[in-house]
């Protein structure tokens, strides 16, 4: 299906990415297994470091993943994890400034004036416009003073001049990840900069960055009807659990995010025990470790807050939601299901392949090729995250003149077929082959390896979980497929979201 599935289920929001690549490992390829090649170290403060040596070229991919994401935000402060990710590019007490003590004084005054602005605006209609104007003038002056002390985007400048590529960060529901690739002899530069970002971050230019994020939201969601649909779909799917909230945040929350609260979020969650470093490439782990300790052990150990205890209550009946937009129709169907390591998750992984992987998948053959009613159909297991129970989701677009309703009905029939007809061993083997080969294809990229090592460690506490997961995929039987389809893919557990034109959805 040539990447068609990507559009619906994940948006690339520049720095903010709900990074959705499937990971595939499998037992017949254990000759290429990572066991014995990955070296692990835990620092005194709890930071986990994973090394994987590949000497194909003198480069390194460097990932720092924190087990904190949008799911850790409280109501009213959605978008904090993502804004914080942006803010950590703004520098530290030594990076990005000509004179921090001077700058600090100005920043403190700006913060207190901003608090006064918020307090005044909170009065609503009674707010005094003259006073607000006065405060805004003060802010402007301070901004101009501060600007003279700032060295713009110094971290990026240093990395790029040192040959760094792919300097970026990603915020997902589950984790936040900071990445860069560097020439292999620059590891210490990375350790110096990244440990400083964790020890002495300065959230300078906070208020203008909020505006940048608002533009990011307008670009990636508010100007993309299918993304608005996705946002609505998640909100309706999750009544209690924070998986129902947008990673980038609701517009009103973004506009009023508070700097002190964002700093507090940083101090709470960017703790060493929540931190995984993955270093893949042309490196000798034994030689690098003492240097890494020197920098990263400066960060003090700390206690994490209690885990999120909110559980999504079982769904009691079908939920439907419409989004009215002047755009071509789209359809999303979701079913609640357990997250890994629950055994049923593996069956859903296979199911995803059966239904939508390639031109021989069930959805493609029937809906695209034979009946020609769909422009695209794809399935995704594990949406929108994997730390907590999640969804099996189907994204579909009808081909004109066919309707979302027709497509929904045909998708429903394909799902029901799973409950009655056992999957042939050949079809099952095909998906398992695809899983193995996809795994193999990931192994020749430093950055993909760093991505997955840090992912497994961060989400499941052990990078080996990835291998175990592949073993679980390989053990899925036709009966497992039938059983999970019967158990989870049922009407009362279903949420359907459709994008409709103004005429169909009533008055605009």
């Amino acid at each position: 299906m040539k990447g068609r599935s990507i559009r619906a289920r994940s948006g690339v929001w520049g720095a903010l990415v709900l990074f959705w690549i499937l990971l595939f490992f499998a037992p017949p390829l254990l000759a290429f297994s990572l066991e014995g090649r990955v070296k692990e170290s835990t620092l005194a403060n709890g930071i986990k470091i994973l090394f994987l040596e590949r000497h194909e070229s003198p480069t390194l991919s460097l990932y720092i993943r924190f087990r904190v994401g949008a799911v850790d935000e409280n109501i009213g402060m959605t978008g904090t994890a993502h804004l914080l990710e942006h803010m950590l590019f703004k520098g530290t007490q030594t990076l990005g400034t000509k004179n921090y003590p001077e700058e600090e004084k100005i920043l403190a005054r700006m913060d207190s004036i901003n608090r006064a602005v918020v307090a005044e605006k909170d009065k609503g209609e009674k707010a005094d416009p003259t006073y607000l104007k006065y405060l805004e003038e003060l802010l402007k002056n301070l901004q101009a003073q501060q600007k003279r002390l700032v060295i713009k985007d110094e971290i990026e400048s240093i990395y790029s001049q040192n040959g760094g590529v792919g300097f970026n960060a990603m915020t997902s529901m589950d984790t936040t990840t900071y990445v860069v690739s560097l020439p292999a002899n620059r590891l210490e530069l990375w350790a110096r900069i990244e440990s400083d970002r964790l020890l002495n971050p300065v959230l300078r230019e906070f208020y203008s960055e909020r505006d940048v994020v608002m533009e990011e939201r307008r670009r990636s969601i508010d100007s993309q009807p299918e993304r608005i649909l996705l946002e609505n779909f998640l909100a309706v799917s999750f009544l209690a659990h924070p998986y129902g909230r947008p990673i980038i945040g609701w517009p009103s929350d973004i506009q009023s995010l508070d700097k002190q609260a964002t700093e507090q979020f940083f101090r709470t969650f960017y703790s060493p025990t929540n931190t995984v470093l993955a270093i893949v490439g042309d490196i000798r782990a034994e030689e690098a470790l003492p240097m890494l300790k020197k920098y990263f052990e400066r960060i003090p150990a700390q206690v994490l807050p209690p885990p999120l205890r909110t559980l999504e209550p079982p769904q009691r009946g079908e939920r439907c939601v419409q989004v009215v937009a002047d755009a071509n129709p789209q359809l999303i169907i979701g079913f609640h299901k357990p997250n890994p390591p629950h055994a049923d998750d593996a069956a859903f992984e296979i199911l995803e392949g059966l239904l939508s992987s390639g031109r021989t998948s069930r959805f493609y053959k029937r809906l695209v090729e034979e009946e020609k009613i769909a422009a695209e159909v794809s399935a995704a297991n594990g949406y929108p995250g994997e730390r907590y129970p999640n969804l099996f989701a189907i994204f579909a677009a009808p081909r004109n003149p066919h309707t979302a309703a027709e497509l929904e009905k045909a998708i429903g029939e394909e799902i029901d077929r799973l409950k009655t007809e056992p999957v042939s061993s050949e079809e099952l083997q095909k998906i398992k082959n695809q899983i193995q080969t996809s795994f193999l294809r990931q192994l020749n990229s430093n950055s993909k390896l760093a991505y997955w090592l840090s992912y497994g460690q961060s989400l499941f506490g052990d990078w080996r979980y990835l291998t175990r997961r592949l073993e679980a995929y390989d053990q899925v039987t036709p009966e497992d497929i039938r059983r999970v389809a019967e158990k989870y893919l049922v009407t009362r557990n279903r949420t359907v979201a459709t994008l409709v034109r103004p005429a169909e959805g009533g008055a605009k």
Partner: protein
Amino acid sequence: MRRKAAINRRAKFLPSLFVFFVAILLIGNAWAQDEDLLKHPRDMKFPPLSFTPPKVTRTLLSNAMTVFLLEDHELPLIQISALIRTGSMYDPPDQVGLGKMTAEVLRNGGTGNQRPQEINEALEFMAAHLEFGMNRESGSATLSVQKKDFPKALAIFSDLLQKPAFDDEQLDLAKKQEIEAIRRSDDDPEEIAYREFRKVLYPGNPRGRTPSPESIRRIQREDLSAFHKKFFRPNRILLGISGDFKKEEMIAALEKSFQNWEPSFRDLPFVPNPVPADSRATYYVPKDLPQATILLGHLSIPLNHPDHLPFKVANFILGGGGFNSRLTREIRSNQGLAYGVGSFYQGRVGYGVFGAFCQTKSASVHRTISLMEEIIAGMKKRKPSFEELDWAKNTLTNQFIFSFASSASIVSQRIQLEYDGLPEDYLEKYPERIAAITLEDLDRVVEKNLHPERSLLVVVGKEQDFDQPLSSFGPVNRIDLPKYD
């Protein structure tokens, strides 16, 4: 806020003499560490890396197909990527989309020996990826497969290339899907903006044409066969293979697979280079959105122009170099007016394209366009500084090593160089050519190649909500999106 943690070893009070001695060592150690730790990253210097990328073998098959080979035995995988001397710029004016349909149905339409579905089942059972594509100025083919399945996959790949059946049902499907994609392209403001920009950038040139439902409907099976026969010839293919194989065996396998394929030495049809516009023009596409998409630019110098690299560096400083480039710093970082903003320069064979892009909320469209134009024109007034040039040069030369991060990328770059007619040592010479660029070079290329006075401006959005009407930039040409039934 957490600085204390950095010196926690010094805080310990240790009573006994022996322990005191140890403590002195620790203190010394800690001080030494602190010196290192306080060293500013700006001042951390590293020697340049020496690295010789593996050499690609180039050879000609007996049917004149050019083949590039690079062995890489890390994983049992084999990867083919090919460029074909064709492109959608060769589409007939009344059948725009023919090249794309040819590539699509070449992949999906079966061969003389096998039905489309049999081919898909075979490929997907071995988890092979095989695709054909059509760009404006080239065609492409890729295959990725496990070593053990390579012979089977190569047979399918070479059969499809040489003896496509162009199955009628699959052509019907491809046409229907393409028409649907055309309808859906209007749901995405960026897609609209780039499409309309191309149309006005290449007026009267095949590169500016875009398919319509009508042009797609006119395409018939014979047209695909004719297009294939004309362009898909071994001597027009640059085929690269990397992965787990032995060169001699691979060459023998390729010779055998393609031995009956006839080269064609007829000239490719002539496609003129696009002609630059002589005055500025504004185009407005109304769409009910909270944010406008802005694109402005003009034609530029070709890839083989002596000023290509200096202008690439100038563009890096203007808006191609990320956060530290002028457009991004001012419009995004200083003013918070955009998330996505920057500029691009692509040197192609015979011509080039320069442009700047931005998305901003409706209420700041006029302000942002004015700023973009001011910053572009500002390259001539506030000329690039030594620091900017140094930053750009360091970045481009130090990042260069990543061009060789995988054997597949080494091979595909080599193919692209030959396709574009660049010398074989282009990559080798690249760092020194970047290093030789001077401030005078930048002044010259900026003066000669940035033309805000004849830029084409395309804006997609809701003008009623803009801070000022677009007519403040000159007469506005309104482009209404087509209404499909």
